[in-house]
């Protein structure tokens, strides 16, 4: 029973990280209609920035998180402006290949700057934990903070897209860019803004992920990136609640297969579930279906 609870808690915590990353994929996909495969690597950059700030500059952890967010936000906007914006009229294959190129570029740049040696990442929230049920159930502070961060981000984004002018303009762009322009919305600026938000979230995810795993290498972001992408598709790409649901479910499935079956199987099962969901519901669990009137 306690193993079950322990697994559930770590599943939800891991899933929360996936959800935060998946949000970045889903928002960018929703608006730019592209899969930003470099998103996972922005996570890695965020983690390195945080690592450098605390290790080399000896600044407090919260400053390092802010630094990571600032650098990643700028990085996201620059990547969009330099690599994707010139391809606005190009086919989706060209954009996809460019995104993969950007991903390799970031990994290799990180290797040049920080070498491929594993860095030991000190958790930004300390290594404390809470013990429940006479010490049978241990919940780390990192896990709690991760889940809390995920909830706060989710609520903030929902409020942003439903109540602010900028947020509504984003939804308008995600539906119909031409019509959005006819309303006077600057579509290019809206796309940049989306990349900025997605990349800021990636920075937070990177710091949280490494706070749980404590190691950091240039490919740290790749696998979580792919899994979060799976989570986004699983939940319904383009949908914010879908990213949350997909992320959490994926985290739980992964932790449970690791624990009860085998860690080798966990990826196979994660992707197996994705395939089944897509066969039954091609638009994902919460994917939107809006009848179009002609």
């Amino acid at each position: 029973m306690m193993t079950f609870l322990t697994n559930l808690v770590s599943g939800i915590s891991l899933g929360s990280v996936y959800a935060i990353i998946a949000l970045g994929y889903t928002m960018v996909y929703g608006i730019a209609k592209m899969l930003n495969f470099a998103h996972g690597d922005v996570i890695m950059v965020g983690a390195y920035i945080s690592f450098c700030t605390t290790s080399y500059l000896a600044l407090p952890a919260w400053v390092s998180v802010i630094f990571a967010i600032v650098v990643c936000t700028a990085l996201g906007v620059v990547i969009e402006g330099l690599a994707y914006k010139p391809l606005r009229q190009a086919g989706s294959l060209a954009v996809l290949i460019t995104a993969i190129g950007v991903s390799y570029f970031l990994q290799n740049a990180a290797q040049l700057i920080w070498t491929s040696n594993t860095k030991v990442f000190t958790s930004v929230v300390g290594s404390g934990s809470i013990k429940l049920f006479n010490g049978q159930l241990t919940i780390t502070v990192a896990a709690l903070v991760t889940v809390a961060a995920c909830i706060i981000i989710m609520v903030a984004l929902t409020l942003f897209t439903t109540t602010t002018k900028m947020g509504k303009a984003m939804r308008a762009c995600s539906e119909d860019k031409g019509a959005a322009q006819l309303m006077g919305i600057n579509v290019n600026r809206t796309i940049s803004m989306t990349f900025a938000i997605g990349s800021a979230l990636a920075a937070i995810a990177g710091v949280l992920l490494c706070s749980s795993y404590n190691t950091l290498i240039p490919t740290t972001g790749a696998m979580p990136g792919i899994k979060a992408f799976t989570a986004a598709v699983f939940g319904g790409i383009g949908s914010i609640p879908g990213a949350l649901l997909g992320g959490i479910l994926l985290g739980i499935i992964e932790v449970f297969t690791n624990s009860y079956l085998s860690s080798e199987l966990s990826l196979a099962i994660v992707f197996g579930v994705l395939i089944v969901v897509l066969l039954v519901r091609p638009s994902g669990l919460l994917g939107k279906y809006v009848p179009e009137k002609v």
Partner: protein
Amino acid sequence: MLKVNDINVYYGAIHAIKGVSFEVNDGEIVTLIGANGAGKSTILNTVCGLLRSRTGSIEFLDKNLGSIPAHKIVELGMAHVPEGRRVFLQMTVEENLEMGAYTQPRSTIDPNLERVYDQFPRLKERRKQIAGTLSGGEQQMLAMGRGLMSNPKLLMLDEPSMGLAPILVEQIFDIIKRLHERGTTILLVEQNARMALSVADRGYVLETGKIVATGTGGELLRDEAVKRAYLGG
């Protein structure tokens, strides 16, 4: 108000608009009529900046629109209600209308909403409804209401009566006439050439990307060639 001078528009190798010039004066209703594929929508999309002409110029309120991006042109006082409505299906009626007022100061939104709701009471009843669940006619009203939210000086309407029941078509044309009386300048594209010409001050007839005839609404209604081609004999 609007001066279009010798525009040529291409879709890749397709030469869709071939040296078209026309103008719309302050306070006029001008209509463009022509068969399917003649290039009417292409012209409107070029005027509002979504498409670009390779030659010539487009002047709006004595400003050359040259390389001004579409979203900036809206700020100058032009609203385009595009073909096929293009309302934001996943947003509510009221959110759609708010988007129409995107370039406007906050303080103008409420009075404009009231005005649009006055004109389309149906929209008021459904203000919280998701636009995707409106009927086709209601979506058309929403598209028009959204265009009016920016208090445009020039309103361009691309087939506003498409797919509507006759009674609703009447209503749309009534609204066009009322807007005209209040001084809004209107550029109207219509399949329903008879209706369009009867409300229009002037009209242009478009054939495969070229203007082949022009005159007042009345003149074109009586023109033999126009009668044969667009008014069913």
